[in-house]
């Protein structure tokens, strides 16, 4: 089974020595993200995020199906993450490795179980018809920070997505195609974003948004998911060396600033895109309705 190429001893030692001297290889301060670049596709619900050299494309789509029998009033929302050898030859098709499992679990907890998307709003006729929204996460380039980048892309794509409009008359449901009627944005309850903290030198050095090389050397990581109101959706620490409980508090307060800045950036990009799409001014009214 192919494995991710490991760093040489020289690189490891150099990286750790540099961190001891307060230097990151790319010259960033410890607590800053790499450059984030967000682009939207021509269609609704396609977000392309570039975080440093990491690149992730998320595509949100939906169709109409029957709801689960035990959840009659809820629509369906699924997130799929499948790595391909494009991001690294170490990823094998159909055989999820550890980072793939972690990514899908974190996103599941951070976005789906935190009810970021109001699934009740996806219900069309209780017990019979609902929308099934799915988000496909494609990792094109991998240089660390997959969780953070995927979360940014996913939230942006969900917010950008428009589902077809429907009308219900008794038992009859009419789904209008995008050409017939202006599609409807999804009802988002809040916008959780992930910030990953990496620990080095038994907790003395804490990095935000580690690159792949830094990820390979770190002792442990903590992933905090939070929305811009400072509400924590989840905190994950999968093994690694123990960290001080107090440092968790530092993490969460530092995460808040990051999340707010990221959300502001996403919002700006969404507005920019809306303006571009909307020549007549109709969309401006629509987006005003949905601003929370």
């Amino acid at each position, binding site marked *: 089974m192919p494995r991710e190429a490991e760093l040489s001893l*020289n*690189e*490891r030692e*150099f990286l750790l020595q540099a961190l001891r*001297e307060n*230097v990151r*290889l790319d010259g960033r301060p410890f607590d800053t993200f790499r450059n984030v670049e967000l682009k939207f596709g021509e269609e609704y619900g396609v977000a392309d995020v570039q975080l440093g050299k990491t690149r992730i494309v998320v595509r949100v789509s939906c169709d109409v199906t029957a709801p689960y029998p035990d959840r009659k009033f809820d629509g369906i929302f699924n997130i799929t993450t499948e790595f391909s050898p494009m991001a690294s030859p170490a990823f094998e098709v159909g055989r999820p490795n550890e980072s793939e499992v972690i990514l899908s679990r974190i996103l599941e907890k951070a976005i789906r179980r935190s009810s970021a998307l109001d699934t009740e709003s996806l219900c069309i006729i209780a017990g019979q018809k609902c929308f099934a929204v799915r988000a496909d996460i494609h990792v094109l380039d991998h240089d660390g920070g997959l969780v953070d980048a995927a979360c940014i892309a996913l939230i942006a794509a969900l917010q950008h997505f428009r589902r077809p409009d429907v009308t219900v008359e008794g038992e009859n449901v009419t789904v209008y195609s995008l050409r017939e009627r202006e599609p409807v944005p999804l009802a988002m309850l809040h916008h959780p974003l992930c910030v990953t903290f990496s620990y080095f030198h038994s907790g003395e050095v804490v990095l935000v948004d580690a690159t792949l090389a830094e990820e390979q050397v770190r002792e442990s990581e903590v992933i905090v998911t939070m929305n811009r109101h400072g509400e924590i959706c989840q905190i994950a620490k999968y093994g690694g060396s123990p960290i001080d409980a107090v440092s968790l508090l530092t993490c969460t307060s530092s995460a808040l600033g990051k999340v707010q800045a990221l959300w502001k950036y996403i919002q700006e990009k969404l507005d920019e895109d809306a303006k571009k799409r909307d020549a007549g001014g109709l969309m401006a009214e629509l987006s005003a309705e949905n601003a929370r």
Partner: protein
Amino acid sequence: MTSTLLLLPGDEVPSSLLPKGNHKPLVLGPGLRHAPPSSVRATVSGTLTVDARKNALWIETNRGRYIPHVNDLVIATVLRSSSDFYHCTITPHAAQANLPQLAFESATRKTRPQLAPGALVYARISSASRDMDPELSCVSASSGKADGLGPLKGGMLFDVSLGFCRRLLLSESKVPLPAEQGGGAVTILEALAEKIGFEVAVGRNGKLWVDGGDVKMTLAVGKALQQTDQERLTLDQQKKLAAKTLRELGS
């Protein structure tokens, strides 16, 4: 002599460009193959380069994965050791290269260097064929001397493009040729070395090893080289970059 003729795979080299009036056998370098009876076809995309003096032609490219060739200098990482060999990687996920444990300067069973997994070695490819795993050596076959090869201690590894490695090695020769004559046109190393001291090893496999003594120096040199590669800086721009780097180092 370089031409600006771009060839795509399958294109025939125009016979007018084949070097003539030379009794040496025609040498086809990387990216070309002989298509019987008398034509030469490209197999990769790139610009055709002709050296009339050596009666050789090849295609210049700057992309893709490194493929081992005999006598290339590479920076390899030791993966594990067995009783007679160190098993190394030259490029990730490719076939492992074997480095005999006695292929170091004046190495005997007792004095051979002990390399841990993850250690870096600067080595020459002593044999490479498509049917066998490549073999490495850290001694010159003729003199038995290390000639600068051997384990690399400390320092840092930087990834650069394959074409840039080639250019660096070309520029290192005693009489650097200008770009028009096939030279590498890299001056940043000399420009930096005028003021600061550091060690560099260039591996044809797209790896650069730099040791400037401390973190700051090593990083500054490595970054400057990477920038020269990525932004394809011309000689003048390289001089400017060198000056800027030196200023930031405060020397």
